[in-house]
């Protein structure tokens, strides 16, 4: 009893710490500065986080545009395998999902960034971030979707075959539509993961604070911003970073509530 209170206590503590620091930013500097200042330059008391929020949203969106179709396609491909082959396929996706993000980031830095650089400088960019970030999200989407494909009742699949559907039509017209909610859950989980991911974006996005003009421009995300500046941040700067963490926390809590609702509907 006391021990399981730790779970509640920790959540409460996290909220208290993050928000109290964030609120002290509100009282010392004022939240309006987060959106009205002309730039993010904490050493000079300028705290505009809009470009950073835009950076987060853009990398996440781009990553989801890649990860959505690829993840779904991988899940469909998984249906082609049976028994132990599918187990192996699953394990491969799990391995991909289990590679430490810092290693994926390292690979992105040494492989994807130079590839992007060949198209257009500087290489470390929104595009590279989107691509590498999508790798972190694909396993989530693919595995959750595959599970929900598998939970489509056998009888519906048999009915499809009995009606003379081709195998492809059975997948596309029966299994996929019935799994819409599972796919949606996977995507929501994926978005949550993409927004919160730090190391990958930190290593491949270039970390320039700006609203990018093209996908080849570097960007900085909320998470990367915290990681980069926390080491030397003091006083108001420090609480400004906590304020950005609070923004992240709110995002994530909303996604948890949405995905909870989804998954309870599935059950």
């Amino acid at each position: 009893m006391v021990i399981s209170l730790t779970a509640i206590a920790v959540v409460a503590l996290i909220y208290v710490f993050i928000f109290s620091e964030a609120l002290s930013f509100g009282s010392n500097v004022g939240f309006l500065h987060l959106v009205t200042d002309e730039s993010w330059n904490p050493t000079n008391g300028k705290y505009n986080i809009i470009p950073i929020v835009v950076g987060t949203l853009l990398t996440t969106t781009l990553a989801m545009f890649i990860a959505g179709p690829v993840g779904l396609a991988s899940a469909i491909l998984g249906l082609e395998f049976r028994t132990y082959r599918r187990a192996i396929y699953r394990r491969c996706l799990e391995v991909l999902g289990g590679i430490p993000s810092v290693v994926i980031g390292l690979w992105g830095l040494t492989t994807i960034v130079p590839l992007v650089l060949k198209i257009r400088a500087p290489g470390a960019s929104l595009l590279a971030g989107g691509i590498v970030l999508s790798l972190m999200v694909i396993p989530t989407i693919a595995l959750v979707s595959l599970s929900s494909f598998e939970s489509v009742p056998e009888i519906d699949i048999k009915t499809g075959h009995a009606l003379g559907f081709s195998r492809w039509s059975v997948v596309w017209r029966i299994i996929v539509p019935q799994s819409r909610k599972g796919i949606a859950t996977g995507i929501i989980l994926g978005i949550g993961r993409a927004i919160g991911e730090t190391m990958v974006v930190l290593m491949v996005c270039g970390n320039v604070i700006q609203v990018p003009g093209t996908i080849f421009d570097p960007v900085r995300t909320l998470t990367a911003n915290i990681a980069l500046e926390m080491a030397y941040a003091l006083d108001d700067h420090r609480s400004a970073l906590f304020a950005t963490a609070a923004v992240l926390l709110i995002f994530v809590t909303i996604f948890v509530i949405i995905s909870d609702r989804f998954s309870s509907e599935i059950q």
Partner: protein
Amino acid sequence: MKVLLSKIAVLGLGGLPILVLAWILIDISYSGLSEISWSFLTEVPTNAGRSGGISSVIVSTLWVVSIATMISTFIGLATAIILSELSAKWEKFCLIVRWSLDILAGVPSIVFGLFGNAFFSQVCGFGFSILSGALTLTVMMLPFFIRVAEEGLRQVPNVYRKTGYALGMRPLSVTFKIVVPQASKAIVIGLVLSLARAMSETAALLFTSGYVERWPESVFDSGRVLSIHIYDLAMNVPGGIERANASALVLIGLLIAINLIIYSIADFWQRKRVV
């Protein structure tokens, strides 16, 4: 024609993740293997990691991860038992705990890092230390471990509990002598998976366990873990990429080894329980 095109699309897109997985592994092995040698594994890093080895880094990693695992086994198992065995009695309470865990599971690791820095390092006064890092990781590992352990406990058929009670066993004995041993495999697997996650974690440790690369002398010492070493070599040390790849290879190797070892322990354990 349309069908054929979409089939090709599925095959092409769907096969991508596996191809990329192979690409990553091959890339890192190719560039990392040449750096790995006995001295790389046994020496302390020098010249910001460009030379020397990673022995102290490995030791710090093992310290952080094992402390985190020990604490979260204790707390996590207790919580999982309460959630699965007492959810009927304490419905509201369990609902709140579960909800908290769901939120905790979604919190970005960098936010854990901030929290760990503010709470463990500063309020608790542990500073940048292995202990702060381990405690931060514990908090991160809990939701996942608890979910898996609870699932395992729930899979134990109810009839065993009833039988235990019907044989006049005390509730605690029913839980610890019958239900928990039955779920031991799931619990161990949950533990390994969360251990692997802890070992992969970087962002949460940036501001808690610190960067100091020498051999840690106690848990209150700062210690640089593998993932941070990789990050630092890749981003802050010009010419550190090969070394970063080699360290990444060691990290992946450790992850695989831990998985293998503990899965076989779980197997052995289950066989032993029979006697």
